């Protein structure tokens, strides 16, 4: 159905621009220009309303045809001993095509948010955890503890959709919900209950968040805490939190691995995983990890069901080899373990291709300015705006269908990668 010269209002849209994937958006297509009408946050509005740029493929900054660009990209991959595919920010079909190409070219696959996702994945592999879904939180959670994150900064509609929204099942009254934040530099505005109740904030003083969490764990076990171990105000607040936790019917621990430090993040996730296990001995508690935007959850899922491993995987030996540390983009580029790079990015054009001297193929949402140092640039259409697709939600249990709102001259990521695979 052509929508080029008409005005059409689309309702109940799933938004692709963060892993919450709110599905109640209303967007109008006015002669090819998209205007958000209802239910979009600031991130969604800025991304939907970006003008649809018509861009052409380029080789070293010079305009060229798609066939020539694909031929050049294919030759880069053929002549490469160890390609690296990163960014990997796309919808399900884009990720599937990327994985097929990686299998054929013997590439390593990583994702733009690989470093933070690995903190979670290591703990899942080594210890396991207990997690919940967005709907369970909405319907049941009477105590939400945000650890190291406020959720609303990166997911502006989190509270509107899940916390203060009217629950639909289980009869939980929203004025019974307690919100607690543990962390530094958090925006707690949205944690304020519409009935006026303020959220609790436990701000670690000198302690790291891991020390604070460990003390909380010790208090829950009834261990005696030495006076000088922690700031007395923090200790009082933690004791109050212990009472809240014990009284909770369905508690949730919420974290975002991207907001933990890169060195200690894995330890934070481990403490949370252990806390959940201990709490579930006598009551019901579950975890929710935020993150997975820019197709992170999607890519991790596709990589797992097709290779058997989550990030990061190397296909150069004609079989999947998994190593979360050796195959990080940062490590590979710093140590010159790769000799070509393919960057796939369907969503946020403010992100740039990693700086490196090896040949770079950039398959990305159309932008105006392309550096002449990029070997090959191929613009692609955006899923959820210019073609249909699917994206997995942050809780990993379902995918949201994306719709086509306007025409585009560009092909989808899946199309381009499939064509490249035929040549490579």
């Amino acid at each position, binding site marked *: 159905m052509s929508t080029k010269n008409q005005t059409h209002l689309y309702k109940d849209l799933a938004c692709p621009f963060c892993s919450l994937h709110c599905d109640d958006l209303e967007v109008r297509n006015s002669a090819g220009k998209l205007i958000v009408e209802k239910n979009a946050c600031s991130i969604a509005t800025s991304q939907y309303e970006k003008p649809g740029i018509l861009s052409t493929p380029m080789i070293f900054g010079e305009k060229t045809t798609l066939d020539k660009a694909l031929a050049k990209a294919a030759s880069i991959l053929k002549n490469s001993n160890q390609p690296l595919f990163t960014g990997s920010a796309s919808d399900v079909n884009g990720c599937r095509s990327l994985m097929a190409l990686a299998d054929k070219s013997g590439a390593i696959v990583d994702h733009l948010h690989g470093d933070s996702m690995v903190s979670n994945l290591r703990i899942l592999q080594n210890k396991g955890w207990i997690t919940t879904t967005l709907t369970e939180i909405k319907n049941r959670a009477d105590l939400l503890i945000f650890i190291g994150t406020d959720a609303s900064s990166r997911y502006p509609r989190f509270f509107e959709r899940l916390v203060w929204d009217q629950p639909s099942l289980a009869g939980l009254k929203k004025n019974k919900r307690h919100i607690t934040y543990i962390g530094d530099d958090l925006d707690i505005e949205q944690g304020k209950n519409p009935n006026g109740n303020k959220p609790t904030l436990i701000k670690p003083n000198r302690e790291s968040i891991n020390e604070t969490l460990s003390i909380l764990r010790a208090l829950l076990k009834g261990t005696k805490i030495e006076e000088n171990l922690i700031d007395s105000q923090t200790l009082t607040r933690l004791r109050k939190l212990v009472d809240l936790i014990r009284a909770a019917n369905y508690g949730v621990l919420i974290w975002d691995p991207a907001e933990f430090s890169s060195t200690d993040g894995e330890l934070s996730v481990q403490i949370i995983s252990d806390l959940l296990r201990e709490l579930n001995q006598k009551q019901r508690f579950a975890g929710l990890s935020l993150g997975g935007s820019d197709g992170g959850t999607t890519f991790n899922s596709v990589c*797992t*069901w097709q290779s058997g*491993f*989550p990030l990061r995987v190397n296909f150069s030996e004609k079989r*999947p080899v998994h190593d979360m540390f050796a195959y990080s983009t940062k490590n590979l580029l710093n140590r010159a373990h790769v000799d070509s790079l393919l960057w796939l990015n369907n969503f946020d054009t403010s992100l740039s291709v990693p700086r490196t001297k090896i040949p770079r193929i950039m398959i990305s949402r159309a932008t105006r300015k392309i550096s002449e140092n990029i070997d090959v640039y191929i613009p692609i259409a955006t899923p959820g705006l210019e073609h249909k697709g699917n994206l997995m939600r942050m809780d990993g249990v379902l995918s949201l269908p994306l719709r086509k709102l306007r025409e585009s001259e560009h092909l989808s990521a899946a199309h381009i990668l499939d064509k490249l695979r035929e040549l490579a």
Partner: protein
Amino acid sequence: MLTRLKGGIIFDPARGVNGKKKDIYIRDGKIVRKPPAQSKIDSTIDINNKIVMAGGIDINTHIGGGKINIARMLVPEDHIENTDNSAKIKRSGSGYFTPTSHLLLIALVIVTQKWDTPVVLNRLCYRSTLVRPIWKWLTHRLSILVHTAYWVMMIFFCR
């Protein structure tokens, strides 16, 4: 109303079509031959690289669903110990208890081929009501044998 399904990969064992990329035309709910060049196509559906086959096959899989993926992530050792190299007809993959989907296309080909064998054998059968049940018994067993041999060949010789 003429509809064109564009770019699909077709499997039609009854006609010996085995993975051919071809367009399909549908007029008023029935599949028809390719119409003359000047015909007006009312709707084109892009099914580039998607697999096309006759219906009647209920696909309810747990290939990429959340739960089985969590299971895969929980046992990396199962996948490290059981990796499968890529070959001409298949991608690489891994896993014994929670395998990946790399063999899916082969399974599909086997499913379509399996039902082909007894059809072909039965074309040669007698009309006699006495011999027919014996022939049916024989061809059924033969088709299982052919099917198993095919499966074994695919897994062990196509690495």
